[in-house]
């Protein structure tokens, strides 16, 4: 069976004559074939090197989006591509290094001069802001503006979308602070957990040590907001810029236009550049049309950054000239089936292991678009997370078509030698998930496990169905599909919300397996303790990965890959590993 697969790949290699890239990308964790031929860039070259480096200014870059940003307000967004894009007009305290390769996962100071200075046994983090940073209207940024930016994220009725780390981690009155829209006291500086002893110093007081706090302040929520210009829910219409670009016009959900910020000082954030003289984003454009426009040169970038649609994918892969303009990086997220530990008989670990062995990884990978769409996953954590090591507990890599013999013996161990029945939940408006659920159903039925498929609309999947433990139990949804992307690339950012026993909530639950393993819980706590170091976190991440897999609470499907197309008109194009897509902060145009 593995032989058939190899032949298939080899035949394709010969036929399409793209020897290096297509054949190499299906097996190596970090696809990086970077041969610069003298005639121009090559396939996947944008993953490891900068394409068209240039400092030339001028021109217009047009982005299309098949949907809308959840919000342009830097304090109210939770999407990777919006975090990526927002650095053009919002500078947080820290950010990620703008460079291709694994350097793109490393933190570097932005608005701050250095990473946070830790004191008081990990409870106090002090940041110094660069002096003379200006807002777009020329006023100077002070530490109070940063404190205010953090404060406003506490009012979830006005700004509901962003992460909640500040509410969870800060001490003082953080647990009861209602946000500056409701608490107008102390000159809108009512949050005691954040202190501003002088105009260039911000001090965060945490409730418990959190070693990853530098990652937390890299979230756009720390980008300064002037309190007198904050219009609450309307701030998204024109955020006051601290980045190289500022808003010229914004028709909500239709079109956004950015122009260079005259008050921009490049020293404020060396990770972003001010090259193009105009940036336009069109929203709610038909996804297939975006690809057509991109390939025709009418626009320069698909801002969602998750890759082209199936029709364009085929077009690119069958044309060697188009392939030179394409990169197929790991997107930074992973697709799983969560195996719920409370729905019988999956509460017995042997029954879960039977599912792990019975699954056919090849048909699952094909559901996600074959080797270009994803790399077969054998671990619960993808290669883009710091601390990743490859291991294969259930023969996902050695026997990708499944191992019915082992599956059947696990079934016997579980007391269900003739199989059992359970439900598979998935999102019906996502064709890949329909295909994956169907593929899993077919594979499981070969060992006697009968499954019923339950499709749900994606808008309410996490809030009402798979993310509601009560619903999952009452409807027997033992297997639930899902994907996960971390807020930051270390083990805590990856595992905390999906594997921590303390993260299980009655609605909007992300620990869908309802795993409550004390080893995992303790490791996660230890990662954030005062004595934690990056090396320790990497080791613990790996340990959690092994434990989660040995608990058989997740059936990994693929490490997602996106086939991205880079317009030849763009300069300084490369994949930034943290975002899993092109770095929007440095683009210019010819």
């Amino acid at each position, binding site marked *: 069976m593995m032989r*058939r*697969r190899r032949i*298939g*790949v080899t035949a*394709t290699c010969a036929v*399409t004559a793209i020897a290096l890239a*297509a054949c190499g990308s299906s097996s190596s964790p970090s696809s990086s074939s970077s041969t610069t031929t003298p005639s121009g860039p090559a396939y996947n070259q944008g993953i490891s090197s900068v394409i068209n480096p240039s400092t030339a200014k001028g021109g217009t870059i047009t982005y299309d989006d098949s949907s809308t940003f959840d919000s342009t307000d830097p304090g109210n967004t939770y999407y990777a591509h919006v975090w990526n894009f927002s650095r053009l007009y919002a500078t947080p305290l820290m950010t990620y290094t703008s460079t291709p390769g694994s350097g793109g996962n490393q933190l570097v100071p932005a608005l701050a001069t250095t990473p946070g200075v830790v004191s008081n046994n990990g409870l106090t983090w002090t940041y110094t802001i660069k002096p003379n940073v200006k807002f777009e209207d020329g006023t100077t940024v002070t530490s109070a503006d940063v404190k205010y930016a953090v404060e406003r994220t506490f009012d979830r009725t006005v700004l509901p979308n962003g992460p909640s780390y500040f509410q969870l981690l800060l001490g003082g009155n953080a647990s009861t602070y209602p946000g500056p829209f409701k608490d107008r006291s102390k000159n809108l500086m009512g949050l005691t957990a954040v202190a501003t002893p002088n105009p260039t110093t911000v001090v965060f007081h945490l409730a418990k040590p959190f070693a990853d706090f530098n990652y937390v302040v890299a979230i756009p929520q720390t980008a300064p907001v002037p309190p007198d210009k904050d219009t609450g829910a309307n701030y998204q219409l024109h955020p006051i810029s601290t980045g190289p670009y500022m808003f010229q016009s914004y028709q909500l959900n239709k079109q956004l236009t950015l122009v260079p910020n005259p008050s921009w000082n490049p020293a404020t954030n060396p990770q972003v550049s001010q090259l193009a003289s105009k940036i336009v984003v069109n929203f709610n454009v038909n996804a*297939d049309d975006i690809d057509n426009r991109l390939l025709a040169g009418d626009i320069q970038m698909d801002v969602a950054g998750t890759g082209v*649609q*199936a*029709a*364009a*994918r*085929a*077009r690119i*892969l*069958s044309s060697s000239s188009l392939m030179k303009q394409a990169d197929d990086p790991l997107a930074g997220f992973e697709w799983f089936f969560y195996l719920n530990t409370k729905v019988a008989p999956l509460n017995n670990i042997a029954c879960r292991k039977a599912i792990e062995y019975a699954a*056919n990884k*090849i*048909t699952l990978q*094909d*559901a996600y*678009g*074959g*080797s*270009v769409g994803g790399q077969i996953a054998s671990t619960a954590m993808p290669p883009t997370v710091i601390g990743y090591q490859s291991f294969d507990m259930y023969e996902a890599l050695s026997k990708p078509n499944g191992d019915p013999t082992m599956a059947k013996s696990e079934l016997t161990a579980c007391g269900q030698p003739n199989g059992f029945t359970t439900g598979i939940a998935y*999102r*019906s*408006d996502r*064709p890949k998930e*329909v*295909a994956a*659920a*169907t*593929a899993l*159903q*077919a594979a499981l039925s070969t060992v006697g496990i009968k499954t*019923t*498929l*339950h*499709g*749900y*609309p994606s*808008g*309410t999947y996490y809030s*009402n*169905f798979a993310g509601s433990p009560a619903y999952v139990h009452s409807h027997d949804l033992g297997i639930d599909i899902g994907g996960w992307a971390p807020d930051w690339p270390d083990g805590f950012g990856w595992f905390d919300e999906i594997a921590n026993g303390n993260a299980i909530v009655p609605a909007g639950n992300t620990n869908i397996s309802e795993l409550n393993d004390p080893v995992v819980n303790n490791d996660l706590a230890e990662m954030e303790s005062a004595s934690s170091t990056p090396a320790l976190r990497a080791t613990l991440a790996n340990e959690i990965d092994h434990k989660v897999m040995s608990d058989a609470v997740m059936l990994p499907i693929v490490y997602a890959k996106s086939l991205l197309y880079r317009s030849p008109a763009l300069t300084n194009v490369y994949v930034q590993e943290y975002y899993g897509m092109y770095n929007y902060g440095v683009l210019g145009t010819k």
Partner: protein
Amino acid sequence: MAVPIDVATGPGGPEPDAPLSVAGKAIEGRSLGQIAWMRLRRDKVAMAGGIIVVLLILIAVIGPYFVQNPDTYNQELINPIFSRPNGAFGGISLAHPFGVEPVTGRDMLARTVVGARYSLLIGFLATALAVVIGVVMGVIAGYVGGWIDSLIARAMDVFLAFPLLVFAIALVGVMPSSGFGLSGNSLRVAMLIFIIGFFAWPYMGRIIRGQTLSLREREFVDAARSLGARGPYILFRELLPNLWAPILVYATLLIPTNILFEAALDFLGVGIIPPAPSWGSTLSNAVSQGFYSTDPMYMIIPGLAIFITVMAFNLFGDGLRDALDPRTR
């Protein structure tokens, strides 16, 4: 005094008298049905349509017993990079006369035949439901008038304005997995027939109501009334035969609409439960997943199936209407 031999009766006209034999051969007057059948038989195109309809029904009913399992994956026939079948024309071969599906390699002939069962069942029955409710409501509203007309017409307005998409999404949570003695896809099919049919009736209802409003003032209705005919008689023997034309036209065009409607409901999670195939969802997949460019057969087969179905029904419906309408030459 001549006895009428071959009476072409108009709608609602008197039945011919008992036969009187002339010249040794029994001459019978023909009933409306017999005349219609004769005319229909002569219309070759309509008969062709009718035969195709019967064939489709046959395929839907007994076809699934003669084809392979539509759910068996054949990964070896799929190109792993492009996710499309390896052979030309979607991988047509002796083993797979219609080729195979992209991504999964499932046999297309099997999926088309089994899909016929679901799509035709839903398309046809949902249409029938919509037509029955629509005609009854429309005729009553148009004929009786007054406040009953107002009530029914306003009900139609409400149904037309009904947020169907919102309803379909909300339905996902309350969709039962078993009930009325059915479960799984049988229950789904029944619910879909009901939902689609129930929300398609106001369109038909308004057409019929409009026609009825015109017709009820016509002379033959007055004539029938003056002869002592009562409401139901007028409704069924006078008005209905004159309504065949729009009914048939709209009904035959409603069938493909409903087939595609089911595909849209698939996307929201309330359609047929996978892996059961249906023409509409196959067609939608082919378009939305971009397969129409990499594997055109995957789109052409269900598209052609739907097209042939609607053509057949339309041709037959045309012929039926021509045959039933005594005024056409």
